[in-house]
């Protein structure tokens, strides 16, 4: 849900990248983090497994700066795409203001695309939200696949609400910014929507933010000079793998086990404000916890398995929070 804070003069919105496993959600966010201007981006935090699969969420704040006196920020999240992690996907969806559905153009992934889209709709319903009314767009990712399904077919099968769609090759950056820009615009349009005829006069005027000219950021060309993730990738996923291997170690939260949060982050954090890749570094305590979660997934879904997964997520998130609070504060 949009948070408008007139005291801090801030508007905060939440955007979630949703989609089936390995469709390119995290890649989208990584590209946004790589290519967004320094003054607009925050650190990219990932809570993921040892194998770089999203476990809880990836998160990156995007600060649009001062717009009409209000600092406007987007919190960008991705969800884990694997079917097993539905509980955590639901958690991340809480309070969402806009969704970017990242679909995989691989013909073999059509069923997963459909399942994921239906899952999105179902999870939103639990929060009383209707996908038909929620600002959302669809990205047809991996358009570089030689056997990528035609867009017309994807549109026909998936885009039942006729929302804006974008072709993309996320791993090279193509289509990433246009997708985000349109969705952001759709979300911002909802902020000030109100039936002026129905609004009563203000009992007490809030402190109105002073209208200010927007601070222009350095204009970005649509196609950045992208470092290819792998040599002439034939498959988008292979390229994504290459890119991720170059990433710094994943978030402290992904490597922490047990209830003590203070052990997180022996290394100094890589979280300079708005700087570089900005991934929170993991302490070298490789844990088997995340691997056990995946083994439990093979055994089938059960309440105990979900409980274990959620317990692990709690520990990871708490470790990440502890890492940020303790070690940044004591730097």
């Amino acid at each position, binding site marked *: *849900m949009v*948070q*408008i*804070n*007139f*005291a801090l003069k801030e508007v*905060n919105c*939440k955007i979630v990248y949703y989609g089936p496993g390995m469709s390119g959600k995290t890649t989208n966010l990584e590209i946004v983090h790589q290519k967004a201007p320094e003054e607009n981006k*925050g*650190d990219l*935090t990932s809570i993921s497994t040892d194998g770089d699969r999203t476990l*809880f969420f990836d*998160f990156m*704040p995007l600060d*649009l700066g001062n717009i*009409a006196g*209000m600092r406007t920020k987007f*919190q960008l999240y991705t969800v884990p795409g694997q079917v097993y992690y539905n509980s955590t996907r639901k*958690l*991340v969806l*809480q*309070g*969402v203001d806009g969704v970017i559905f990242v679909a995989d153009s691989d013909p073999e992934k059509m069923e997963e695309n459909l399942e994921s889209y239906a899952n999105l709709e179902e999870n939103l319903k639990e929060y009383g939200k209707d996908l038909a009314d929620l600002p959302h767009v669809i990205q047809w990712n991996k358009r570089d696949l030689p056997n990528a399904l035609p867009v017309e077919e994807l549109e026909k099968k998936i885009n039942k609400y006729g929302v804006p769609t974008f072709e993309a090759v996320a791993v090279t950056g193509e289509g990433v*910014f*246009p997708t985000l*820009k349109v969705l*952001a*615009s759709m979300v*911002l349009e909802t*902020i*000030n929507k*109100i*039936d*002026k005829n129905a*609004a*009563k006069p*203000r*009992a007490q005027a809030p402190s*109105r933010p002073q*209208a200010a000219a927007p601070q*222009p950021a*350095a*204009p970005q060309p*649509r196609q950045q000079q992208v470092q290819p993730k792998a040599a002439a990738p034939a498959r988008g996923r292979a390229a994504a793998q290459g890119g991720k291997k170059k990433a710094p170690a994943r978030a402290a*939260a992904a490597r922490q086990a047990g*209830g003590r949060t*203070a052990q997180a982050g022996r290394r100094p954090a890589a979280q300079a404000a708005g700087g570089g890749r900005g991934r929170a570094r993991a302490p070298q305590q490789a844990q088997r916890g995340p691997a056990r979660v995946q083994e439990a997934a093979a055994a089938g879904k059960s309440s105990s398995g*979900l409980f274990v997964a*959620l*317990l692990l997520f*709690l520990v990871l*998130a*708490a470790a990440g*929070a*502890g890492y*940020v*609070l*303790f070690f*940044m504060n*004591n730097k």
Partner: protein
Amino acid sequence: MNANEKLRADRLVFYEKDIQKIDKILTEFLRLSGAKCVLLVDKEGHLVTRKGELRDINMDTISALVAGSFAATKEMARLLGEEEFSALFHQGTKDNIQLTLVGDRTLLTILFDDRTTVGMVRLYATETARKLVETFAQAEKEQGGMDLGMDDQYQDRAKNKLDAIFGPPRKG
């Protein structure tokens, strides 16, 4: 629920006088409990306000992680047959975090060290949460039917800013 009521329900709005009241409550909490700092974070992971000793901490990230952590425990509680856990405690070697649910939308996030005890923090956190709930209820009552108060130029300027950051719209 009509359209405007739905729009209002989809927003969490804090006006300056609301935040002033909240800040006063939080300042008093810090004085009584001996905690180092306190953040008020909404359940979606947005920071509402903060008080106390906090330097160089990435507020966006900590808010997101706190909200995620709490959301995970809520689901655990549900599996165990509870509606939710209203408080969480994370113990560190030097510093600790106490999370306390405030109403149904915000989380009181308290950072404290050995200058105080978890009992003291919890004692005053409960009372503080109660006061905050009253403040929110009062604020919501006063906001009902009010014009939001955003600048009319906001939409257009937002579009310009998006063009500046992400590039102009593609032609054709």
